[in-house]
């Protein structure tokens, strides 16, 4: 089983975010980490490889600093990596990111491509699906279980309100993985050391530029929400309070 895992480097969850000067994105002098659902996607790929053999390849599109997520993946057991390395990949919309990834895969052949369900920063939840479309492959989202079958894979999708969907899918396919599908492993010292000698193929923006179009989605300006917390104390007996509270909820907050 040859599996490609798409990884994205995102700001650490507890990083102090500040707007950049043009107000279009955040200042990048913070720490980054791998997007959480992508980490689960990688873990799932490594487990599939351990069960069925094959190869796990990781890819990311981002600036030089993004090689951190590739190295981490190689340390955990991925076999090789592809880095679309350019600052220009920051802020690229989902279509162009998918096009860049698709272009980088020319000459490769995979049975499955895993991505995280969505990214912790932009949260599009589109790149994986668009990539499937560009490759003319079937796809399924919010995957929480993968079993290999004779003809392909049997998948478990997480729906709302505790419902699941089981479906069969032929290979090759693109799957977007939900956090929590497995338990993440730790990198080991020997893994980190060996990762240094694993191949990382570097491509630039120029290498894939021909396949890209105009960004259809552009962030013009970010705004920091103004704090609007307001506390109002209600007074009266408990019966009166309940009445007043229901009125407030119904007429002012409009929760029902």
């Amino acid at each position, binding site marked *: 089983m040859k599996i490609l895992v798409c990884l994205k480097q995102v700001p*650490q*969850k*507890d*990083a*102090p975010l*500040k707007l950049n000067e043009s107000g279009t994105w955040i200042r990048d*002098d*913070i*720490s980054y*980490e791998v997007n959480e659902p992508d980490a689960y996607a990688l873990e799932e790929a490594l487990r599939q490889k351990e069960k069925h053999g094959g190869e796990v390849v990781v890819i990311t599109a981002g600036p030089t600093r993004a090689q951190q997520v590739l190295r981490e993946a190689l340390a955990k057991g991925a076999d090789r990596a592809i880095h679309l390395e350019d600052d220009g990949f920051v802020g690229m919309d989902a279509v162009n990111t998918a096009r860049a990834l698709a272009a980088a895969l020319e000459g490769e052949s995979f049975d499955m491509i895993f991505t995280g369900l969505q990214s912790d920063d932009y949260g599009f939840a589109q790149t994986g699906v668009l990539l499937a479309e560009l490759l003319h492959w079937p796809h399924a989202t919010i995957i929480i279980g993968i079993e290999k079958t004779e003809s392909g894979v049997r998948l478990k999708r997480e729906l709302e309100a505790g419902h699941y969907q089981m479906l069969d899918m032929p290979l090759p396919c693109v799957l977007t993985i939900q956090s929590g599908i497995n*338990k*993440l*492993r*730790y*990198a*080991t*010292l*020997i893994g*980190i*050391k060996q990762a*240094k000698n694993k191949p990382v193929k570097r491509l630039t923006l120029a290498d894939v530029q021909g396949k890209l179009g105009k960004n259809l989605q552009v962030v013009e300006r970010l705004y920091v929400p103004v704090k609007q917390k307001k506390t109002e104390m209600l007074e009266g007996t408990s019966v009166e309070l309940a009445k007043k509270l229901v009125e407030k909820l119904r007429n002012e907050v409009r929760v029902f």
Partner: protein
Amino acid sequence: MIHFRKSLEGVDRPQMEADVVIVGGGPAGMACALRLAQLIDAHNAAHPDAPMSKENIYVLEKAREAGQHCLSGALLDPRSMNELLPGFEKEAPLDGQVHKESVYLLTRAGQHKFPITPPPMRDHGNYVISINKFVKWMAQKVEEVGITIFTGFAGTDVLLDGERVLGVRTDDKGVDKNGQPKSNFEAGYDLHSKVTIFSEGARGSCTQQIAQKFQLENPEHAQVYGVGIKELWEIPAGRIAPGEVLYTLGYPLTTKEFGGAWIYGISSTEISVGFVMGLDYADPRTDPHHAFQSFKEHAFLRGILADGKMIRYGAKSLPYGGWNCLPQLYGHGWMLAGDSAGFLNSQRLKGIHLAIKSGMLAAETAFDALRSGDASTTQLAAYKTRVDASWMREELYPVRNFHQAFEHGLLPGMVKAGIQQVLGGANLGPDFKCSPGYKNMQHLGTCSVSDDARAQFLGPAKGDGKLTFDKLTDVYHAGTRHEDDQPTHLVIADLDICNRRCTQEFGNPCQHFCPASVYEMVEEEMVETSEGSGSTQQKELHIHFANCVHCKTCDIMDPYQIIHWTPPEGGGGPNYDGM
């Protein structure tokens, strides 16, 4: 039942052989790695027939990323960096060169500017830096020269063979809160190394293991510490210039406590504000975080911070003792560098340049040991010889009595420090001795119930949410994160002392000195008494280890010395981005 962290027994441990292991990737550790690489590169250029490898030199760093557990004011004296990487100013992240310093004495209602800035506090030519960004940059340099930094890995146990240090064990990963391995358990490695260098920062946990085992400290000159608490603020432009430095003494402390504050201009709208408090105070209710908050309420600070915004928080201990308190710095297979050794100039409030220099000297000594294949105590004694022959001694020896002069308060301290200034560092008599700061702590019963002179730093700060903050709000801004399902890494030898004796004697000072709300005394359910006279309520210690910012204050200041700070699962801890 609290389960405390310790290395699991009876598990198969992977082993790895190393030439040099550097425990702790701060300025000392990174400088050590860089210097080693330089020496090896130079050697290989001169002796292509007998090359040495950098392959098996490792830096262990418990933070998720290099620099994330580094906290300082920070001012950098460039002396050692100029030796390590000449021309470093061109590429290192520096915020501004110091061009203006002033010192103020704060009283409750006013401030007095010192007519001249005392010479040790003149910082012209130094740089305001973010130690976090600076160390991150150093880490890049280390990786570029081909030395591996293992981030997210702590050294937890020193591996010993009699007097000889064999290396360190790294942290077990994937252990649950009851001490049982989880499905993703990874046993810590036994890293066997020819030379191990401990550069863990102040009160390092491995350093403490060997310090106690080998009695490295001179009991007459015990190390003394302070805790530094810092906030980054964004303020309206025009108040503090980049590279402007202000120091204050006095309020909110009285003349009995040692401490002071700094304000450094980072950019026209960003400042570093911090407060250092000596961990040798008497009243167990003293809360250094509260002192810092009260400091910000002073009119002088209000003027600077008004309409500003606090963006980051952190706390870290620092060694104050100076030259006479240096422990033995080396032994068979090991050396101490940076704050772990106590290389800090408490008169100038600076240690980064000394940490870097000590790392370089340890590297030179380790290099010779590798080349000769001899890492014995005799061979590594060259480290101490190098320190003695360097400008570190020139800088530290004349101020060896500085902190000790303040043991009996600010005013006698200033007189004694003045005499030292005239006598080249000597006293009118022998050098002062130094005993551990926790020994000064008085029983609660001997402290007055309401101490008006000290109300501004006793007990917790309430915080107004704008200028001042309660501890939890501040801790949130430290970005600290730990895996919840793991054993408690604050290891307490005897909880009974906490829940009974300490409550009686000291009123559980851990609640107060911890700047991160790790320790809380919680009213527990009724306990039946034997007389059957009903029930009594008892408070029990709860340890919120996930709040820990790795400052080590508890290990230092606990009056019974039963709290041992050990590293949690690697990767856990604060995120001092930009600090």
